[in-house]
């Protein structure tokens, strides 16, 4: 089994890539539909995934993702290429979703996002579904964390941003980011130990 103990994806965009992105964002800001569509298509999975973790699996996550994407398009003109488009969009996504989470008090009925296809997938897609369900379970576990801690955890564990990047994105200091990350991981660790669904999925029955 290959284990990625410290997960993270590297944006790895060169400045030339950023330049191209600045051009595209500038077109999007000027109202070019094809540029806007291209940006949405490129960022869609990333934004939806982030929104779901931040919303702790709540079904409103889809709404938040939509708001974040719209905010990204509205801010397109302010992208200067100082960081990758993905990082820049991530910052807007986190801020938009956090704002919505604070604004909207969830109602008593906590409806977790569900798939329509559960139990009805072909063999090929079964692994994907199983992984998605497990990750969703993790997102629900995020519900025990404060939104600020959730944001740091998502940016680090899901998107692999560095501590300094996260601090910049959240307008806070690195010490605070480290603290939130430590607290979040400790809590998550405790919950993971006692979660039969995730243990089963990883293939480790609790002894």
């Amino acid at each position: 089994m290959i284990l990625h103990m410290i997960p993270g994806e590297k944006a790895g965009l060169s400045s030339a890539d950023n330049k191209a992105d600045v051009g595209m964002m500038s077109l999007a800001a000027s109202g070019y539909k094809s540029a806007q569509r291209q940006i949405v298509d490129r960022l869609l999975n990333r934004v939806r995934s982030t929104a779901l973790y931040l919303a702790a699996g709540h079904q409103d996550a889809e709404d938040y993702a939509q708001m974040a994407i719209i905010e990204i398009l509205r801010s397109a003109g302010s992208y200067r290429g100082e960081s990758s488009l993905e990082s820049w969009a991530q910052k807007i996504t986190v801020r938009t979703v956090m704002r919505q989470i604070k604004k909207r008090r969830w109602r008593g009925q906590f409806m977790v996002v569900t798939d329509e296809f559960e139990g009805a997938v072909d063999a090929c897609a079964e692994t994907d579904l199983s992984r998605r369900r497990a990750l969703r379970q993790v997102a629900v576990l995020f519900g025990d964390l404060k939104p600020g801690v959730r944001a740091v955890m998502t940016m680090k564990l899901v998107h692999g941003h560095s501590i300094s990047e996260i601090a910049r994105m959240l307008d806070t200091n690195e010490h605070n980011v480290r603290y939130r990350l430590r607290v979040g991981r400790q809590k998550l660790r405790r919950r993971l130990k006692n979660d039969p669904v995730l243990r089963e999925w990883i293939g480790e029955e609790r002894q």
Partner: protein
Amino acid sequence: MTRRKGNCDRVHDLWEAQTFGAVLSEKDRRLVKDHLDQCADCRVEAGILGEMAFDGTSGPAPELDDLSRRRWIDDVMDIVSRQDSGAANVSQSRTWRTSSFAAAAAIAVLAVSAILWSAWPSFVAQSNGEEAIGYVASDKLAGTLLLSSGDVRVGGEVLGLGSTLEQGSRISMARGHAVMELTDGISVFMDEGAQVEIRELGQTLVDLFVKSGRIIVQVNPDHDGPPLLVTTDDGSIAVTGTVFSVAVVDGRSSVSVFRGSVKLKSETGQVRPLRLGEEAVLGREGVTQISREGESAVSDMLRTLELLTSKEGIALEIDSVPAGAAVFVDGVELGITPVRASVRAGYRRLDIKKEGFESVRELLELGVERKLTRVFELGELSQTEVASSVTSETARRKTSDSKKISPVSTGPVATPAEMIARAQVFRMERNWAAAVGAYGDLIDAHPSSAQARAALVSMGNIQLENLNKPRAALKVFDAYLARFGKGTLAREASFGRANALRALGKSGQERAALESFLRDYPDSILAQRVKTRLDEI
């Protein structure tokens, strides 16, 4: 054991250091690897953290198939383009569909009505043809006809779909009904017998005079165009973001408010507010509550309004032989054939029904072409068939050029996967009623499929959360649990059932359901919430 715990701590320290940017030495890496071989807890943690890394997919979010993805993006593009034209605000548009709308709208109404209050004299005077005080002549706009079913005329001329409506147009609905959009964000449903006149249609004011009959007006709260003033012989109604009806019958003008609030001004100049759920007669004292029947009658019309659009709408022309058949799109009755409507793009379910004739159902993909014409030839039912209410299995259709096409089956028209994808599209569009209809179709067509099982639970969730129909939701959850008590979604169904009972106020049964949930799923992630709720009741 102590030694293993110590190793766990050490490994966690190493992970943490790595998280903060440190590079592990060869020795430390080996330590971690050896520990993972022995420690199941850490293996779970490492495995989960490894899977969390973004890999280009939507991760925990439900996967979108190509169609749903396209619709998702279209939805965003639509909102952005409306914002660009200054006609929409996303946060407001998202909340339009939620029950919290009333609160949001109330604040907006208060703010804007204060402005209207001060401006009232000038534009009321103008609307009544009197001398305007300080009124600025406005640039003229043009309205559009979005739906025509029956006989809608302007000055004796029959109007067609897309016909332009201008200031001064006098519109009469002799038979059937019609929907017109006066300007972006203001839609008017005209019932049979209604007669209205567009007295002003400018950048600073829209004034609609109702001579007789009933109209239902929907003003989107995002609407930031000119204010709307609806006038009758008995007074006027100042409007911001709201939904209300005006009926002028037997010389009485009654107003009912279904969303938001309005301000009424009588002939004598007396001004008073009318709020959500209230109705009043212009020029008379007193306010009454809207009856349940009145509310449900209007809800059908509102669903019609939501289905129609002037922006990138698809022109749908439906006719039948014989004429006079009822046309339903996604379960919403648009009218009696011939029907002309500008419908929102997407997958739509079209039903044609006429008593004594075979019914027809067709799935339409609106968006491929800008205009879609269908002429259906309805087969007459025999007496036996009428008695047994046999649904349409052999209805035939013709295209607009009257060329006959082979009989269309209205039975299973698609595979379970296709049908559930269609329901998902409706969900993406927040078209909850249509989504429930699509799930229902799937369950009817493929009752033993795995998708039908999932559809039951999805249906229940929508009915409970989005349509506020806990009784219907309870039935659906019960049906799932009775048939597939040990199914993969039994946990969700059990939880949904408890929530439905809560919404119905049956706390005794809710308690039993919650206790049963805890017994069956003690390790569920929802268990803590269930316990909290049990403590509350």
